[in-house]
C-alpha cells in the first residue's frame, strides 16, 4: 500500500514535471533549426542547423557580450543579496526607532511601477558620468526592495532569536553574530534570491538598451537583438544565444541547489 502511494505520487510528479519541462526542451531544440523551419512543423526533434546558428551568433560578438552579461550579473547578484540580507536582518531581528516607518517605506516603494523612473535614472547616471558604462546596471542592485522584504520575512520565521541571543552572550560582536550564527540559516534564502537576481540581471533589457551606446559594452540580450534585421528575424539563432545564456544558471542550480538549500542548514543547526 505504502509503495503504491509512493510510486503513484512519483509518477504523477514526473508527468507534471515533464509537462513543465517540455517548453524548455523545445527551446533547446529550436536552437538547432533553420529559423523559418520552426514554423513548418512542431520543433520536437533536433534539426541540423546548430552549427550554422552558432556561426551566426559568434559573428555578432557573442563571447564579449556573454562576458559582459556574466560579470554584470555576478556583481549585481552579490550586491543585491548582500544589501538585501543585511537590511532584511536588521528589520527582522532588531528593535529600533523608526523601524516600522522605514520598513513600510520599503514596501511602499516596491509598489510604485518603476519603469518610467528609467528616464530620471538615466539623467542621474548622466550627472554622475556613468552612462556608457556597466555601472547603471550593477548599481540598480542596491535597492532591491523585493529582496529586503523576502529576507526579512524569511529571517523572521527561520532564524531563532534564542540562537542570536546566545551568540551575544558568548561575546560575539554584532557582525560576528551575523556572519557566524545567522548567515548559515540565511543561505537557502540567499541562494533563492541570488538565483532570481541573477536571472533578473541576465534578462535585463530596457536599462542596458538606453544607457549603453558602445557595442563593446553590450550585454547578451542587446547583442542578440541585433542578430535580426528589419526584414528578417533569425529566431533560431536568437533562441540559441539566449539558451546558452541560461547555461550558467543551470550550472548554478545543479551545483548550488543541494549544498545551499539543505546541506548547510542542517550543519548549522547541529553546530
Amino acid at each position, binding site marked *: 500500500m505504502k509503495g503504491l502511494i509512493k510510486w503513484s505520487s512519483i509518477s504523477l510528479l514526473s508527468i507534471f514535471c515533464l509537462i513543465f519541462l517540455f517548453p524548455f526542451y523545445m527551446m533547446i531544440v529550436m536552437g538547432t533549426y533553420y529559423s523559418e523551419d520552426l514554423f513548418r512543423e512542431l520543433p520536437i526533434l533536433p534539426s541540423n542547423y546548430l552549427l550554422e546558428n552558432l556561426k551566426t551568433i559568434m559573428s555578432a560578438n557573442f563571447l564579449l557580450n556573454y562576458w559582459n552579461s556574466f560579470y554584470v550579473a555576478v*556583481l549585481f547578484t552579490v550586491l543585491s543579496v548582500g544589501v538585501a540580507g543585511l537590511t532584511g536582518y536588521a528589520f527582522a531581528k532588531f528593535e529600533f526607532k523608526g523601524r516600522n516607518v522605514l520598513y513600510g517605506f520599503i514596501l511602499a516603494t516596491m509598489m510604485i511601477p518603476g519603469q518610467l523612473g528609467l528616464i530620471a535614472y538615466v539623467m542621474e547616471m548622466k550627472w554622475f558620468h556613468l552612462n556608457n*558604462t556597466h555601472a547603471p546596471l550593477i548599481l540598480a542592485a542596491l535597492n532591491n526592495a523585493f529582496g529586503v522584504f523576502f529576507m526579512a520575512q524569511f529571517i523572521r520565521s527561520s532564524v531563532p532569536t534564542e540562537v542570536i541571543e546566545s551568540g551575544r552572550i558568548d561575546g*560575539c560582536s554584532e*557582525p560576528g553574530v551575523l556572519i557566524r550564527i545567522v548567515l548559515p540559516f540565511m543561505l537557502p534564502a540567499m541562494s533563492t534570491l541570488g538565483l532570481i537576481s541573477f536571472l533578473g540581471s541576465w534578462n535585463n533589457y530596457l536599462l542596458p538598451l538606453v544607457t549603453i551606446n*558602445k557595442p563593446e559594452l553590450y550585454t547578451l540580450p542587446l547583442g542578440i537583438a*541585433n542578430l535580426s534585421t*528589419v526584414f*528578417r528575424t533569425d529566431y533560431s539563432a536568437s533562441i540559441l544565444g539566449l539558451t546558452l545564456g541560461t547555461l550558467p544558471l543551470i550550472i548554478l542550480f545543479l551545483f548550488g541547489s543541494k549544498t545551499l538549500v539543505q546541506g548547510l542548514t542542517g550543519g548549522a543547526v547541529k553546530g
Partner: protein
Amino acid sequence: MKRTGRKVGTWVACLALSLMVVIAGCGSNDANHGTASENGKNQDAPVKLTAWGWDKAWFDASLVEFNKVHPNISIDFVEVSAGDYLKKVQTSIASGSELPDILWAEEAFRGAMYELNVLEDISSEPYNFDSSKLLDFELPLLTNSKGELVGLEQSGSPGALAYKRDLAKQFFGTDDPQELAALFPDWNAFIEKGKEVVQESGGKTYMLGSLMDAYTILSKQGTTAVVDGTTVNREVVLELFKRLQVMRDSQTEGKLGMWSPTWNASYSQDNVIFYPAANWSPQFVIKPNDKSSNGRWGLMVPPEGGYPYGGTTIGIWKDSKNKDAAWTYMNWLLASDEGAEANFKVSNYILPLKSFFEDTSKLSSGPDEFFGGQDLGSFWVEEVFPSMKAKQVTKYDQDIYSASELVLETMAQDPNFNAEEALMRWEKQLKKNHSELIFK
C-alpha cells in the same frame, strides 16, 4: 571575535573593491568617449562621427566606398535594432543625453522621428540640398509637418506583388508577369478572380494570406494621407475598410495572420498565391521561407500600381558637433551618382535619384533562377518605380497601423463585423493616446 570582525572587514572590502573596479573601469571609458567628439572643426583633419543603425552589412560595405573618397571621416557604428530604435532615441531625448551625429529612421516610425525636432533640415542653409534631384514621389516620405526635408533614403523601397508561378498557371493560365498585370488592372478584377480560385480549389487556395496583406498594399497606394495636421480623413479610411470587407466576404484572403508562423509556412505551400513584396523581400522573406524551391516565384506590378514598402531614411542630428562631416557623408553616399553606384554595388540598393534613373540599363541584375529567370533589377526600376505614388508621412503612422491590425483581426474573424463598425473601433483606438485628433 576579532577574527569574525576581520572577516566582515574583508567582506566589506571585497564589495567596495568590486564597486570601485566597476566605477573606475567606467571612468576611463568615459574619458575616451569625451575626446572622440572634440576634434573635427577643420575640414581635412580626421573627424570621427557616430551613427546608430541596424543594417551593419550595408553600413560597413558602403563606408569602405565612402572612405575611398573621404578618408578623413571615420564613423563609429552602434548597432541598435530597428524595433528598439525609437525607444532608445526618445529616452535619450527625454533625459537630455547625447544622440549620435547620424540618425536612422525606418518606415514604421519615421513619421514620429521627423516630428521629434532632432533632425536637421537639409534643404536649407548651409546644406541647400536641391529636392528636385529626387524622384517626384519621394518628397512626402522625407519631409515633416513643417515642410522641412529631414532625411534621405538609404534605398528606394518599391512595393509589388510576389506570386507563385505554378499556382498562377493553374488558376489563371499564365505565369507571365506582364500578362498577369493585364489580368488584374484593378482590385475589383482581383477580387472577382479570387472567388473563382476559392471555388476551383475547393476552399484550399486563396489570393492573399490575410487582410493585413491587402491592407499593406491598399493603405499605401494613392496620395491622400489619412491624417492632415490633426484632422483624420474618415472617408479614406472607411473606403479602405469597405474594400477589405468585400475581400473578406468574397474570401480573397486566407485568414492566416500576416507574419504569423502559419503565414510564414504558407510560402512553401499551396494555400496562398500572392504576397506583398518589396525589393528586400526576395532576400529576407521569400527565399528564407521557401528555400528548397527553384523557379517557383515571380514578381508583378500590383493592381492599381506600385507603392512604397519599407525603407530607411538617414538624417543629421540637430545638435551634432560635426554637422559638416555628417553632411559630407550623406551628400556623397545618398545624393550623388557615385554614391548611388556604390550603393547599388554593395547591396543592390537603388537610390531614388532622377540622374541615376536616366540610364536604367546599368541597374539590371541579370536573370534570377529562383524567380524563373526574371531580371529583378530591371523589374523594380522599369516597372514599379514609374508607377509609384506616396502619401505624406505623419507621426501617427505607427499607431494607425497598429489600430488597423487590431480591427482587421476582428474583421477576419467575425463575419458580421462591417466596415462602419471597424471604423468606429479604429477611431476609439487612435483617440486612446491622441486625444487631439479630430475625425471628419
